[in-house]
């Protein structure tokens, strides 16, 4: 899924090619017939900006995945769409578990605002330079980030008070 695939003749269409040429550290690959691009988090904002210029102007989705024991632990997934011709672009950004910060893309695409808040809320990934990073789905006083794989599923111990079962 890395350089070898890129050299192994992944045919990039127009729009993707320009991005590939401009960002040498962005690695394009294909996953089940869909174009995927791995971008280091330092260049994420510049990459998204360039992608919007290339016509990928409809913000579709931003979410996070926790791969627990993989390195880097988290992955932030940004989906963009170009209208004419209809093409999708999926940007994957690896985020280490001990420093879960990603630059926010809200400056380029304001639509990412709620999605980044959701990823922060559920995964504890901090989007730097986000204007208003707060919890969005869970209450403010919630402790922890429940979609992390090491977050225990909600089971509250029931304290049976010395029930006298002997009869």
């Amino acid at each position: 899924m890395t350089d070898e695939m890129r050299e192994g003749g992944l045919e990039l269409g127009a729009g993707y090619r320009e991005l590939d040429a401009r960002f040498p550290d962005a690695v394009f690959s294909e996953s089940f017939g869909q174009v995927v691009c791995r971008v280091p988090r330092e260049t994420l904002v510049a990459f998204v900006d360039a992608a919007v210029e290339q016509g990928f102007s409809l913000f579709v989705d931003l979410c996070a995945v926790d791969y627990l024991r993989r390195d880097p632990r988290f992955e932030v997934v940004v989906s963009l769409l170009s209208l004419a011709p209809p093409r999708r672009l999926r940007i994957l950004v690896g985020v280490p578990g001990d420093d879960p910060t990603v630059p926010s893309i809200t400056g380029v695409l304001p639509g990412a605002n709620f999605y980044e808040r959701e990823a922060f809320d559920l995964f504890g990934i901090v989007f730097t330079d986000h204007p208003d990073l707060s919890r969005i789905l869970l209450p403010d006083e919630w402790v922890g980030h429940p979609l992390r794989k090491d977050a225990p599923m909600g089971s509250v111990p029931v304290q049976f008070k010395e029930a006298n079962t002997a009869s």
Partner: protein
Amino acid sequence: MSNPPDVVTGDTEAPDAAAQSAPSAPHDVHPAGARRTQHDLWLSGTEAPVDTGRFTDEGAQEMLLEEDAEVLAEQMGTLVADDYETSTGGPSDETQIINMGPQHPATHGVLRLQIELDGETIRRVKPIIGYLHTGMEKTAEALTFMQGPTNVTRMDYLSPLHNELVFSLATERLLGVDVPPRASAIRVMMTELNRVASHLLWSATTGLDIGALSMMIYGWRERELVLAFFEKTTGLRMNHNYIRPGGVAADLPDGWEDDIAGVASGVRAGLKDYETLLLGNPIFLERTKGVGVLTAEECLAFGVTGPMLRASGVDYDVRKAFPYSGIDQYDFEVPVTTNGDVYDRFIIRFEEIRQSLGIVEQVAETMPLGDYRTEDRKVTPPPRARIDQSMEALIHHFKIFTEGFRVPEGEVYEAVESARGELGIYMVSSGGAKPWRVHVRGPSFAHVQALPAMLTDSLIADTIATLASADPVMGDVDR
């Protein structure tokens, strides 16, 4: 159950195990013997010491009296384009912040809007969501791919079949399973009928919201025709669990062609009534024309899709751009208008009902014969009759429904056009019988986010019409 395990999330082995660094011991949050408090249970164990506390102060989700410039621009809807003539001039000192919702009959669910008013004019809006959050994405990680549709169908509860379809499409793409033509045709027919039902309910409740009370009754009346057909086919009026990975749960019932014809003619007749009732009514025109305008530019930046996007003049429909389930073999038009106001959203949705009925009739005419689910025994249980004869079939049946089937490792994004817009799913499989991660990209989530851009500088009385025209389903927003 006094000692719940620390890692209980579907499969415990992360995908792409080769890429992992030295496998560490399971994170031991609670040393042996340490007494658990109830609070500990919600702590996620290995969190790096990131100071998130400053982001989650009490009241962080609420609108403040003083905000910095960027947040202000977001709440005033001027981030993308400042297209409001009345937004010049500073605020008077007589502003007040009011709450609309979360318990409000016109917010279509538990949506809360904090609105800063200057007299009757809205200056700032902040949508606050999460009141219906039930952690369905987390639940999805604990259910097998077979059980998945039961979960996702409850997200956008007005178009449940679209949810099931997108989940099934994603699973099938990972599996590499082909669906028989009849199953695809049934899927298209049912989802298009679902679009009709959802748009009918939308026009009914939106009509009610802007004062057309009889619209409420008519809309529900025609929707009932569609729901009756759903009940006959799937057994339920909503939350069907009808479309499953590999096909659909059951074949169409006897006499379905007549039912379809009845639904189509009934809804068409109703549609004529609505148009007479609404589109010529001066009060209706007054309340909808030029209200809640979104420009095409704003739509793209905020991720607004579906009828809202098409009302703003952008011709994008997932059914045309990325056809699924063979929907491209049917003949239909995608209506597009340019004003981007509430009136145009009515026009678009009425026309979409017509187009969807056209698709449904075409499917009914050309319905292929054959299986309604794949013959791939990996995902489809053996037929009921075989279970009585063969021990192997019984075991096979049992295994599919208890363990589920394994889905190859990988990740996909799959999208369909739901009644509200692009309904996407991002699914990661680790090679097990349960998905590693399921993220649903609900169209309503993006639409709620665009509310400030629509509402600011309009009158408080227009809030209801604008909000209703966005058609937010809170189950889809909060998941």
